[in-house]
């Protein structure tokens, strides 16, 4: 059984939602980013999304754009991101790691080589923003053949007619982007989230995680009552942006992570 499936099964038994945290690998530098990554599970992160930096993050808002710029300026590249996962796995064998980003760096490394190294490093899943199901043969199919989950984004514009196409070949969990927009943008209403989760459940048995615009423990708790997972990214990254030292960045991110985790654990009473 995959780490993702094991984790979501455990949480279901505990009757709580997963806290899914996003950080960009190498932001603001390799050492700080690795320290944050290693600290996230103890701070309450159940699943970790690790951003692969790219010069042109077309679907991201200002916070994650800047995180990409900081990471690239600190010479982060795809090989180093894979090395970070490998180092993380030295003392954590259970927290799932999902690499998230854009296709070009993977394309440049070569899909076969990337997948071999990702499996070896201990990567559990992939979210590639600019690879819709129309291009499954590019990465989704070979990734799943290699045992890596391919997590699909579904959005408010993904209608009932299109949902089966999008979910076909999805595995791990389904990421519902609750607002049409870029990361870090305004949040959706709870009614909208409820409807969306209900609609997704009619089409899939996979866990549903909700993301985009969730920033506070209160928001996270409200979403946790309605979905299997809550994704927080830009709010954590803002802690790195505003930190004056490496220690502050680590403590800022992990501190917010602990608060979010508290919120989630109390959500379903």
């Amino acid at each position, binding site marked *: 059984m995959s780490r993702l499936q094991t984790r979501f099964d455990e949480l279901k038994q505990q009757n709580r939602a997963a806290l899914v945290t996003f950080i960009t690998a190498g932001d603001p530098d390799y050492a700080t980013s690795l320290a944050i990554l290693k600290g996230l599970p103890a701070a309450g992160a159940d699943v970790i999304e690790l951003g692969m930096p790219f010069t042109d993050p*077309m*679907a991201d808002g200002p916070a994650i754009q800047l995180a990409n710029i900081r990471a690239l300026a600190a010479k982060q590249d*795809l090989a180093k991101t894979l090395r970070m996962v490998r180092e993380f796995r030295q003392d954590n064998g259970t927290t799932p790691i999902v690499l998230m980003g854009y*296709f070009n760096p*993977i394309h440049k*490394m070569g899909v076969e080589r990337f997948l071999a190294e990702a499996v070896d490093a201990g990567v559990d899943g992939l979210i590639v923003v600019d690879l*819709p199901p129309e291009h499954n043969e590019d990465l989704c199919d070979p990734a799943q053949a290699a045992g890596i989950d391919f997590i699909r984004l579904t959005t408010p514009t993904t209608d009932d007619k299109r949902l089966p196409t*999008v979910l076909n070949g999805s595995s791990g969990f389904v990421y519902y982007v609750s607002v049409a927009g870029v990361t870090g943008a305004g949040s959706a209403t709870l009614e909208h989230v409820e409807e969306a989760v209900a609609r997704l459940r009619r089409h899939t048995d996979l866990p549903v995680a909700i993301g985009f615009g969730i920033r506070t423990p209160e928001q996270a708790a409200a979403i946790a009552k309605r979905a299997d997972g809550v994704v927080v990214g830009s709010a954590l990254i803002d802690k790195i942006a505003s930190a004056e030292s490496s220690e502050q960045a680590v403590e800022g991110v992990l501190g917010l992570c602990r608060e979010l985790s508290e919120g989630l654990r109390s959500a379903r009473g």
Partner: protein
Amino acid sequence: MTSLRNGPDAKGLFGHFGGQYVAETLMPLIHELAAEYEKAKQDPEFAKELAYFQRDYVGRPSPLYFAERLTEHCGGAKIYLKREELNHTGAHKINNCIGQILLAKRMGKQRIIAETGAGMHGVATATVAARFGMQCVIYMGTTDIDRQQANVFRMKLLGAEVIPVTAGTGTLKDAMNEALRDWVTNVHNTFYLIGTVAGPHPYPAMVRDFQAVIGKETRDQLHAQEGRLPDSLVACIGGGSNAMGLFHPFLDEQSVKIIGVEAAGHGIETGQHAASLNGGVPGVLHGNRTFLLQNEDGQIIDAHSISAGLDYPGIGPEHAWLHDIGRVEYTSITDKEALAAFHQCCRLEGIIPALESSHALAEVFKRAPGLPKDHLMVVNLSGRGDKDMQTVMHHFDEQEEHI
């Protein structure tokens, strides 16, 4: 022989290039756009409306002009200029804008967004948006805003909002990222009017079709003047829309040699250029798989060209394919060579060409002298140079020494 004019396939691919590499939020819109465009293509009313605006608003057909003095100067091939710079707004860009705005109208969209580099596409978009009473937002990099201030003012005069993009190097690619971000945020009412033969399917094919009027007219006009096909075609390439418009109707004519000219900037060997085919490798950006300027890690490298309109690290996927199969020869011209050609054209023909088109002219100066006098060469004079006065003034003294 199978036709080279049938692409793309149902998935939007030209060979291995093209496709629909965009975020899920945009996929339903792109499918809707493709379906709506297919319907419009079959609709005689749409064709009629398009023809009307091409003639009475854009000013088509544009002349195919025998450049006698240029021809004499080169002493070889007989050179014809396809005068796209005489179109309303001063470049070929409006051919595509008028087509897409009619499509936007059909789809009931009220808000138009676009990216622009040199500002010519921004001006053309602002123009048609004004004509059809639609809200218009143009994304433009801050570097480009600095070197194309007159065009920024023109867009504002036409009622558009120009949003400066500071990300990256503040050029065309960054403007396109920001336009895509706007589009995912405002999907319900917004039509993204892409200015070149790039982006996700159906844009490369759709923009090509709207620009193909250039090649179709050229074919008829040259037939009327010379009674035959041209021997060669030359056009500059940034994203590649003016070139594709000229080339496409001739792709199946094996006797016609086709030459696309990329911007070599300071020289391909310096790394500071915009020649995606001559200096890049395949990758995925802005919705399509094509040749890109990128580093070992797949990070996009900023392009450089003296002409803002060619300053883009990618190229339309159909060009990538035509390069791959060898149907079109892609060459490159440096900033310096383009400037020299710019001056020659001003003085020999009394035509001030855009710096973009000057790249094509520079290639003509290289090739025409060695060709026989009965060789018919058509160059796409894709835009006029009024917008480039600032840039050229800056280089004028230095350039004077070269001519």
